[in-house]
Every structure is written in C-alpha cells, then in structure tokens.
C-alpha cells in the first residue's frame, strides 16, 4: 500500500516542526466541542493524533485509489450530454464518492455541519496530496472554500440547508465569477440579479470558464445594483443546480482534463442572497479568492512533487554512456534545483497557511458569535491579532500563489528535461504534469496580478516585519553565517523599497517581480534556517538556497536601482507594431 503522506519526509517534517498544536488549540477553541460531539478531540494531543490519522488516510486514498486513475481521467475528461448534464471521468466520480465516505469533503467546516474542523494548514497538506495524485481532482476537492464562504457569511438557514450535503460530498460547488468581459477585472461583471414582487431573487446572464460549474451549489457574483457600475454594485448569490441553469459548453483545455470548465447561462435562475448586498466582491469574493489562492499554491505543490519524483527516479535508472544520468553535473543541477524549489514553495505556502489559520480563528471568535462571553480586553487582543495577520496574509497569500505556481511550471518543465524524449511522450506522466501546471499561474489571478498584490506588502514594510520576526532569535553558531547573508539582503531590500517608493507606482509595478523575488529569497531563507535548527538535511537546503538565490538578489538590486524605464518609454519601438492580419 502506497501512501502520499508517509512517503513524504518533507510534509511529515513540517507537520511535526510547525506549531500545529497551537493551531489545534485555536480551531478547537479550548476543546469545547468535545462536550457536544463524542468524536471531537479533548486536548491538543488528541487533535494532533486526529490530524495525523486523517492525513495518513488521505495519503492512502490518494496513492491507492486516485493516482492510478489520473492517466485515464486525463484521456477521457468530462462529457456534456445532450440533456445538459455533465458526466465526470470515472476516476473523478469515484474519488468524490470515496472522499465523501471518508468524511473529507468538509475538511475545515464546523462539526455541527458534518465537518471535521481541521486547520487550513492540514487541509492544505491534504490538497497537496490530492493534487499529486491528480491535479484536476484538486479543482473539485479544493473547492471547499465555497462551503467555508457560506459558513462565514450566509444566514443560519442557508448554512443548515446546504452545508451538511457539501460536507458529506453529496453536493459539490463552484465559484461563479468570470464572464467573457470580466476576467482579471471582476468589477466589470454584468450578470444581473434582481428581485420579484415577493422578494425572491433571480439571476440572469452568462458566465464563462467556470470550474465545476456543473456542481450543485453555485456561488454567483452578480450585479444587484444596476446603477452602481463598479465592484460595490455586486453581490454574492447562491444558485442551486436547476433547469434554469444551462451548461452550454465544456472548454477544451490544455490540461486539468478531469476538471469540467463550464460556460453557464443563467436563465432567470432562482437564487438566494448570501450575506449583505454590495459586499459580494469587496468582502466575500475577496475572502473566497484568498482561500482559493492558497488552494492553487497547494495544487502547484502537488504537481511539482509528482513531476520531481518521476525525474528523480528516472535519472537514477536511466543509463547513458555506461552510467546513470544522475551522475552528470548538468542533471544533478536540474534535480537539486527542482528539489529545493519544491521545498521552498512548500515552506512559503505552509507558512502563509499557518498565518491564515491565525487570522481565521480570531475572526471566527469575534464575528461568528462563537465567543459571546469575550471580555473587552480579549476582544481587543483578538482584533489586533486578526488585523496583524490580515496584513501578513495580504502579502503571503499572493506571494505563495505566485511562487508555488511558477515553481510547478519550472519543475515539470525541468522534469521533462531530465526525461528527454521519453518525457515528451505520453508514456510518462511528465507531459501531463507540464500541461496541468500551466494553468496554475493563470487562474485565481495571474502571476502578474499576484506580484502586483505582493509588491504592495513588500513596499509597506510588511515583508520586512515578517522576515525580521523570523530572524529575531538566538541562532546556533553554524547557522549564523547564513543569517548574516539574509540580514545583508534585508538591508538591500529596504534600500530598494525606499528607492521605488520615490519613483512612483508605475515604476514600482515595472520592477515588482524583482522586488517580490528578493523578498521571497529572504523569507524562504529565514524559514529554511529555522528548519535547519531541527533537521540536518535542511542545513544543506538552506545553504543551497542562499548560494543560488543571493546573487540574484544583488543582480535584481542593480536593475531596480538603475531607475531604467525603457520598457515603458520605448514600448512602441521595442515591441514593434501590432501584427496586421493579411
């Protein structure tokens, strides 16, 4: 029996090393649920043991049940019937059934709705394993943020009506945002939502590129205030699958073939309002998207891990010139870079998720009325904690999504380099990983948008604060040299930030990627140094990371400090004219 949890040293190390105990105490809120639910944990040890068992179960299901179906799922995809119904690939349909039976479809939902109330960090680990088995399944399994959004913002009536079936896996959901003319710019959404004389809501309009749009529970972003043309005129509505919800086509995509991407026509479909009007985009979808971005980071980790393993194994077995190709320096460099890249993305994503958990737990306690007996001082502490981590997460979430998704492309691309011609053929899964990886840098906000979001957090000094917090401790002698390198880099980062702030927004956006890359180098470097205090292998990883990345920090520094704007000023000359169709 294979197991994607127990065979992964890095995930297991992080599970043991990170303070998951603290997260357990947060989400279990003093372990008060044990009185009401006989399965809820009674203390932190109990909760940690649960998490380990749950992750082991996920590891077994993903390795034994799901991974073997990924190739067929990629080949057959989903089918849109004449009746307008979508049939999943058999592997996907079976996986949803099994994951539901295993109680894993309500991973972070409260116990009272059938969930298992796990921290986001544990869910992210599970998401990574799902994606390693079949990246396209993550697009359905990883949509649990929809249920979380309902839980966070909808009325009790809606929660009670919809969440239990989502937790059991009977119903799956979709976040229905994108339209033909509203992609990255969701403020431009045109789909209308209106009320009849009795106050019933209806939705009318076309949505495109909707992942799992054939699901039973659709959260639709629609304009409820026709007179307000920007994001403040948008609300979030729940639409159930209905004859008035017409799936018009399934997209024919490069990768993630198991994930049905639907075009939907809402023909005056009955709807229910989630939360308050006008908060659809600015509050609810932003919250939903932040969770989804961590989800895509986890999906990217799974793809990267899978692609790396194929290459590592192949390079060991494949013999050319009478020796395994892993013995050639060029191949060693590829493999080492891939391995460090995966570990870096995991470090960053898990660190971000940990911080998300802290913010969520504080918000739950303050806003969801789950801590009515809070006194003023406690309330204040929680509010401060929520605010602080919200600030962190506004940086860490896009940073993780950007880095992890780009990593999955790099690593699957390099995996193909290691396999050479064999990797280009369908005989090995690498070409699938490469195709699957490509979407991760696009959806839930492109890399370019993530970088723009992240650079604001670097410019505001948040990145500095986070890195400084990590560095501020006593380090063992042998790691101090590495710490000094990071401190030097931090001084460079501060200098660059001060410089670009003087130069204005346009320049900041122009060099955003370089600034964000530098911040990632330092942040991940600090995380690796922390891990190095607990695990010898991480000492080598930290050294390798800084040796590889610090020269790039200085290179980027030179470019940033040049103030050169030629890309903008000479755009017409450098890019040339727009091609004219013959």
């Amino acid at each position, binding site marked *: 029996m294979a197991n994607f949890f127990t065979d992964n040293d890095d995930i297991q190390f992080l599970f043991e090393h990170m303070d998951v105990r603290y997260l357990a105490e947060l989400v279990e809120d003093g372990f008060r649920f044990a009185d009401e639910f006989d399965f809820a944990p009674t203390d932190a040890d109990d909760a940690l043991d649960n998490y380990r*068992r749950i992750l082991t179960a996920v590891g077994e299901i993903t390795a034994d049940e799901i991974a073997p179906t990924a190739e067929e799922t990629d080949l057959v995809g989903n089918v849109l019937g004449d009746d307008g119904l979508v049939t999943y690939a058999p592997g996907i349909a079976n996986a949803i059934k099994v994951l539901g039976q*295993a109680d894993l479809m309500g991973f972070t939902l409260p116990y009272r709705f059938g969930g298992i109330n796990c921290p986001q960090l544990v869910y992210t680990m599970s998401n990574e394993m799902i994606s390693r088995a079949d990246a396209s399944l993550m697009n359905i399994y990883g949509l649990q943020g929809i249920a979380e959004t309902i839980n966070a913002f909808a009325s009790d009536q809606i929660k009670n009506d919809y969440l239990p079936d989502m937790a059991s896996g009977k119903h799956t959901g979709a976040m229905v945002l994108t339209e033909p003319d509203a992609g990255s710019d969701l403020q431009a959404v045109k789909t209308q939502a209106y009320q009849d004389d009795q106050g019933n809501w209806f939705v009318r309009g076309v949505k495109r590129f909707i992942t799992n749009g054939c699901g039973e529970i659709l959260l639709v972003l629609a304009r409820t205030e026709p007179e307000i043309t920007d994001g403040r005129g948008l609300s979030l509505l729940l639409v159930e699958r209905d004859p008035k919800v017409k799936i018009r086509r399934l997209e024919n995509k490069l990768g993630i073939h198991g994930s049905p991407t639907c075009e939907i026509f809402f023909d005056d479909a009955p709807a229910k309002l989630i939360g308050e009007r006008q908060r659809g985009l600015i509050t609810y979808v932003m919250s939903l998207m932040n969770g989804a971005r961590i989800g895509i980071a986890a999906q990217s980790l799974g793809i990267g891990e899978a692609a790396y393993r194929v290459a590592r194994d192949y390079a060991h077995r494949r013999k050319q010139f009478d020796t395994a190709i892993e013995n050639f320096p060029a191949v060693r460099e590829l493999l080492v870079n891939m391995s460090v890249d995966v570990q870096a993305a995991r470090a960053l994503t898990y660190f971000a998720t940990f911080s998300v958990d802290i913010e969520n737990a504080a918000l739950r306690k303050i806003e969801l009325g789950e801590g009515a007996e809070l006194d003023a001082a406690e309330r204040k502490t929680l509010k401060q904690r929520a605010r602080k981590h919200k600030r962190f997460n506004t940086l860490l979430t896009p940073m993780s999504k950007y880095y992890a998704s780009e990593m999955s492309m790099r690593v699957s691309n390099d995996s193909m380099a290691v396999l050479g011609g064999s990797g280009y053929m369908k005989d090995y899964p690498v070409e699938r990983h490469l195709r699957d990886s490509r979407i991760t840098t696009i959806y839930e906000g492109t890399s370019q948008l993530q970088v723009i979001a992240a650079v604001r957090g670097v410019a505001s000094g948040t990145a500095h604060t986070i890195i400084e917090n990590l560095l501020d401790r006593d380090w063992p002698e042998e790691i101090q040299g590495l710490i000094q390198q990071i401190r030097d880099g931090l001084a460079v980062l501060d200098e660059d930030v001060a410089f670009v702030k003087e130069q204005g927004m346009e320049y900041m956006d122009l060099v955003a990627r370089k600034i964000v890359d530098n911040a990632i180098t330092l942040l991940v470097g600090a995380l690796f140094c922390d891990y190095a205090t607990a695990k010898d292998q991480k000492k080598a990883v930290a050294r390798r990371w800084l040796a590889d990345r610090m020269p790039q920090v200085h290179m980027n520094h030179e470019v940033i400090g040049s103030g050169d704007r030629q890309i903008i000023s000479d755009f017409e000359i450098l890019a040339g004219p727009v091609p004219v169709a013959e």
Partner: protein
Amino acid sequence: MALNCVVCVKQVPDTKRITGEAMTEEGTVNRRALPAIFNPEDLNALETALTLRAEHGGTVTVVTMGLPSACEVLRDALVRGADRAILITDRRAAASDTLATSYILSCAVKKLEADIVLCGRQAIDGDTAQVGPQLAEKLSLPVISYVEELVGISDGKITAKRNVGNGWEVVTCTLPALLTVMETANTPRPPAARRVMKFKKARAKSEVEAMAADLLEGDYENYTAELKATEVEKYCANLADRGLLIEQWDLDDLEADLTWCGRSGSPTKVHRIQSVVLTGGEYREFAATDDGIAELIGELIHDHTVG
C-alpha cells in the same frame, strides 16, 4: 426486515510484504516480521454487511478471535461502520486449527442471534477457506461460499451469485445463512474521519489492563490487586457508556467444551514443510514469427502452463 449481521474477521500478517525473515526456522509464519493487517476479504465481508444494513436496517457485529492486539482490526471495523465489536481471547484457544477455530466462533455466534453470518472467503495467512463453511456446519446453517454479488433478500430467503471457478451460479437459500465473500464482491469503503476520531479510543478490557498504569489516575503501581481490578472495571464502564468498549469474551463466557478448543481440538498435524526456491535455469528463444508463436503456445500447453 431488519437484519442482524455477524461478521467474522481475522488479523493476519501482510503476506504481500514478504521479507527474508517471514518464516521461522521451524517453517511457521514469523508474525512479528510482517505488519498485521485486516484480512482483505474480511473487509469485503464487512462491506457486504454494511450495505445490507443500509438497505434493510439492523445491526453489524464484528467478531474476532486472537490476542488482544487483534483489537486493531476491531477498531478498524468500528471506524468503517460496525455497531458492535467482540474480541474472543483466551490462552486455552492458542494453537487452534481451522476446526477448533470454527467451533469457538460457532459458540460465539450462537450467543448473537444472527440472521446472516459473513466471512471473508479465506485468510491470506493460511489460505484454507475452511473456517467459513465449517462454522456454517457447526451452526447448522446453509452456506453460500465464494459470493461475488448479493442479488437480494426477500421472504426470508437470500439469493447470491457465487463463483464456481470456471463460471458462476445464482443460488437461493433460507435465512439465517452464512456467506463467504470474495474480493470481487465490492470495494470496501474507506475509514470515515469522524469515526476514526471517535473509535481510535475504543479498547477491550485486556487492553485496559495492559495499559492501566498509563490510563488510570493516581499511584497505580501501589494499588492492591483488588483496587486495580476495581479501577479497570470503572474505566471499562466509562468506555461502555461512551460506546467505546470492545466486548471481550473468553471460552468460559462462550460455554465452550474445552476438548474442542486449542491444541486438543485441532487434529491438523503439519507433516512436513518444504521451502521451494524457484531459480532460473534453461531458456529457449522463439522467433517473433507466426510459426515461432505457434511453437511457444504448443510448448506452454505441453508443460501445462496453459490449457
């Protein structure tokens, strides 16, 4: 009609993970060298019972005979959905062969008023496939062995499709009855997380006794034997209140005739054990032509590899 199902399960060494230390010098299985697992086809039997309960109502009781460590498979059965778990453990049952085992199990099943008794077709350690049918014989129940599909239950009768080696047949018999279930019958459901969280804490009395010093409060080591026993009872009562007590029966509880149990009840004598070592030897090459293939097939038929 609600059905009370009793599923007999066994903890076995994972014979798919054979290593060099898998056999003792005496030629018996070295159980310590292999991980202990839920016998695979017993999981199919349990799944059949759980499906029957979902369709007809009733209960699923799981019984195993073995050392207290066999509670591991009982916990797994509870996690997958069983209502009740019973451990039969008794030193006097040691060295039981299939005949003694089926006798002891029959004593347990008699106390449980089963409508349907389910067993896996066979266990992967002994591969005898004898315990199920022998148990039916001792209980005077009709048996449908090698079940691949449950066709249905109506009017106190059960109909099932059974594998007969080179085909299948559909048979009907009256309830109560005993079924032995094959791997092909279904796909066992995975452990459900919420039940994992609950039933990981389930214990049998003998486990509580073994772990008493850790589980019980106070200066346990200095307790008198009597006080220790009282504390264990209290702990077990608490487990029972929470639905977490694995019931434990010994041969006295079963009112078993001891001459039919353990070594004295086991007529099986291992006459000789041969360690077969397969080694490569001669080989022949066949041309990749129609004639070559015909020649290869002829050769395979000739040495009874096929046909």
